């Protein structure tokens, strides 16, 4: 499992990369390993709002479907249509090719409640198998 240094993480296994007031969101390497082969991805349209801790999309593997949760409040400014078309990119490139949405961050203070890479790694190893 990998957890890049420049990202922040949720307990529901999403990551966020912050660049100014825009956050790029995806699911972690640990999450894609747990899911297995991803076959389907559903994402919100640009302009829709997302809320911290609330589901904004669905990722499905051969085994099961899982909600994807927003790390913080904001408005979707871009979504990765390529990942919707070829969702297996979530398995092959969870931190780059499979970014899912870009969000205009409403409240930067919400970032403080997210985990850093070291915290997330030990959290995921504890939760993982």
């Amino acid at each position, binding site marked *: 499992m990998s957890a890049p240094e420049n990202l922040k993480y949720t307990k529901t296994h999403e990551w966020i990369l912050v660049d100014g007031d825009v956050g790029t969101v995806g699911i972690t390497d640990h999450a894609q390993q747990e899911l297995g082969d991803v*076959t389907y991805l559903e994402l919100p349209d640009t302009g829709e709002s997302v809320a911290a801790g609330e589901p904004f999309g669905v990722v499905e593997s*051969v085994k099961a479907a899982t909600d994807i949760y927003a790390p913080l409040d904001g408005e979707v400014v871009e979504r990765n249509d390529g990942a919707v078309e070829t969702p297996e990119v979530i398995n092959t490139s969870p931190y780059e090719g499979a970014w899912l949405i870009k969000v205009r961050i409403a409240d930067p203070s919400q970032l403080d409640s997210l985990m850093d890479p070291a915290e997330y790694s030990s959290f995921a190893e504890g939760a993982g*198998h």
Partner: protein
Amino acid sequence: MTDSATGQLKRTALFEQHEALGAKIVPFAGWEMPVQYEGILAEHKRVRSGVGLFDLGHMGQVEVTGPDALEFLQYTTTNDISGLAPGDAKYGLLPNDNGGVVDDIIVYRSPEGEPGYMVVVNAANTDKDVAWWEELRQRRLDLDVNLDDISHKLGMIAIQGPLASQVVGKITDERIDDIPYFSWKNAEVAGVNAKIARTGYTGEDGFEFYATQDDTVAIWSALLTAGQEEGIAPIGLGARDTLRLEAGMPLYGQELGDDISPYEAGLGWAVSLKKGEFVGKEQMQSVKSAGAPRRTVGFMTTERSASPRSHCAVQLDGREIGYVTSGTFAPSLGQNIGLALIDREYAGIDKPLQIIVRDKAVNAVQVKTPFYKREA
């Protein structure tokens, strides 16, 4: 292996092999079993195009012997096995008194020179089945029959795929390519004694081996080594489920249950109403005569969506008409498929359905099963 009475999960003799092969292990029907190794899609495709190996040590087996073994099985199962020659097998159902289904089973008549029958049952149902058979035995004290649950000592391995026969041929001197579908025979394989059956649950050609738990380890290792050229690899329960569903085969607890008639499940062919008295016969007869009120139908979704799963509601124009019994993304077809139990008036090839997947109505069309059929 641990005792189920302690509530601990049981392990097959191959458990260490699975761990060494990098399997992801999950609890299943009271056992710790591999759900996947390299990934469900890759494993599924390997069985369709090459060959894969399955540990089925969790499956249950019950030996039925004694002078009245045949009569007892005729009374307690739905299919007619009176015509089975030694070494032949037949699919059937273990019925309840209401005309529902306690389990689906395969009855093997022992090869020439050996007495009785062996019945293979689902892992999750083994204890329940044995208890029901014991109860039925009390009901038929006129019959001289012995029941022996041999699940704990018997192991089971399946090898499935178009190249299965080629691989098995390398580890036994016995001829195996002439074993007919739904037959078995004794053979020495990998230096141990086993019974090799031409049965499976994938829609591909293949074999199932029955041997002692310990001896399955030798067979497993020999098959993995012998099949290297053919690209053999172990297959977990995840791909076992997608393979069986593409092949349109029922799974107990989904397509089959205590309150589903075989005629609703599309398994009327496994019920012989002509053979004489058996448990639940009258009830099954009346469902058949009146026409089963619900039908099991195959469907494919016609738009992109999350996969339909068991228990998803099935609607037509906003009206609920049934539910999904099994659903998955079908790796061989690249789209979502499933089986659903719906009111009979809506059943028919090419007729529409809507499946409620995660609160969204997804359009689907009824199609013939099996969804996948291997080339002859």
